[in-house]
């Protein structure tokens, strides 16, 4: 039944705004915590990155030795040709059957012409290639390329995130000084004046206490 005056409505707005302001501050505090966590994660990431670089060098050196040795082997005249060719002719049908079975069961989506393509491939393949583990070397090189691509991709993403986060955390919100003594909030208060009292109005001793 009571009539609420415009001043009282305004005072209620002030009280409500105070609550919202606290919530915004809580959100900002949460952001700062997340910022710290991101900083920690980034430090760990940097450490890991340097380990990765060492491991990459080690791996690439080993890959290079493998490639070089394979080249030398390929350049040397093929030996035991007859034995290998005979075994290869017996190996091919089994290999084709195993591969088609695997492809139909596991790979599912794919070209129905895989059987024909496979036969052609096997006919063109030299048993020498198998003897020197050429397929393993090819897989190794392919993995090597994939890993490089993967790391580049992840690095690219991290640098995009880093740019966005730098902009975000460079905001004045995260760097400003304590407030200067002024109070521009437009509403008056009739219930809790202490809330609006600017800090500089408190005597020093009370602040200390």
């Amino acid at each position: 039944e009571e009539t609420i005056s415009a001043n009282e409505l305004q005072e209620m707005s002030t009280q409500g705004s105070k609550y919202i302001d606290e919530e915004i501050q809580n959100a900002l505090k949460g952001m700062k915590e997340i910022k710290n966590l991101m900083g920690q994660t980034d430090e760990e990431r940097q450490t890991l990155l340097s380990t990765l670089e060492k491991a990459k060098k080690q791996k690439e050196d080993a890959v290079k030795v493998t490639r070089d040795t394979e080249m030398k082997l390929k350049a040397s005249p093929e030996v035991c040709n007859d034995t290998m060719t005979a075994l290869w002719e017996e190996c091919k049908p089994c290999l084709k059957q195993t591969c088609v079975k695997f492809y139909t069961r596991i790979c599912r989506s794919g070209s129905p012409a895989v059987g024909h393509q496979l036969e052609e491939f096997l006919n063109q393949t030299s048993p020498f290639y198998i003897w020197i583990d050429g397929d393993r070397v090819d897989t190794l090189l392919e993995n090597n390329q994939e890993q490089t691509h993967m790391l580049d991709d992840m690095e690219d993403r991290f640098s995009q995130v880093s740019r966005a986060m730098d902009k975000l955390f460079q905001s004045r919100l995260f760097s400003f000084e304590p407030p200067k003594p002024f109070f521009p909030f437009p509403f008056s208060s009739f219930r809790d004046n202490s809330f609006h009292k600017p800090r500089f109005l408190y005597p020093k001793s009370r602040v200390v206490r």
Partner: protein
Amino acid sequence: DTVPFFIHEHLNFPDLFRPFSDLIRQAQQAMDISRLMGDFATGNNNDTRLVCREMRRNSTGCLKMKNQCEKCQEILSVDCSASNPAQAQLRQELKTALQMAEKFTKQYDELLKSYQQKMFNTSSLLSQLNQQFSWVSQLANHTQNDKQAYLQVFSVTSKTTDLDNSSKLGDTEVVVKLFDSDPMTMMVPKEVSWRRPKFMEIVAKKALDEFRKNNQE
């Protein structure tokens, strides 16, 4: 430490917060994990995927199954050292080098997975950031100027009819606006007098919850 924004004349609320949501979104898009997950499957699945891909491309993957055929395995056991000892030696060197390279590749793969885990952690922190903060940025988007109150109360009335189940007769109906958003109607139980500070805390909390709900991305 943060301090109430409205005592910062030099901090303009809309200008300050509006870009935040976009920046967080940009960062989240960069960390689009679903795509990366597709690219970087783990364990045996990775091998299977690789074999399938190789088979589709040029059938090379098929040679990985040579171990399942006896005659194919025999090719690997052919000893040609008698006809060319130097080549046999070279082949042995290749086997050793290959083993080493495969071992280092595997180790590198494990490290890459740890690095990927860091990406997941960062991505989850970005989600938290978005959850925790996007509503503030959205509030800023509803703000035309920084001089207005965060929350404005337009009317406070006592409910005289009992038409719905969400409130009771005598409860207080409050119409508020958060910045320039649409007016929202909040109900406060009649037990809490509008003269008590608790009253506006309830109203503001409800208004904020509703704003967050309506603006969830």
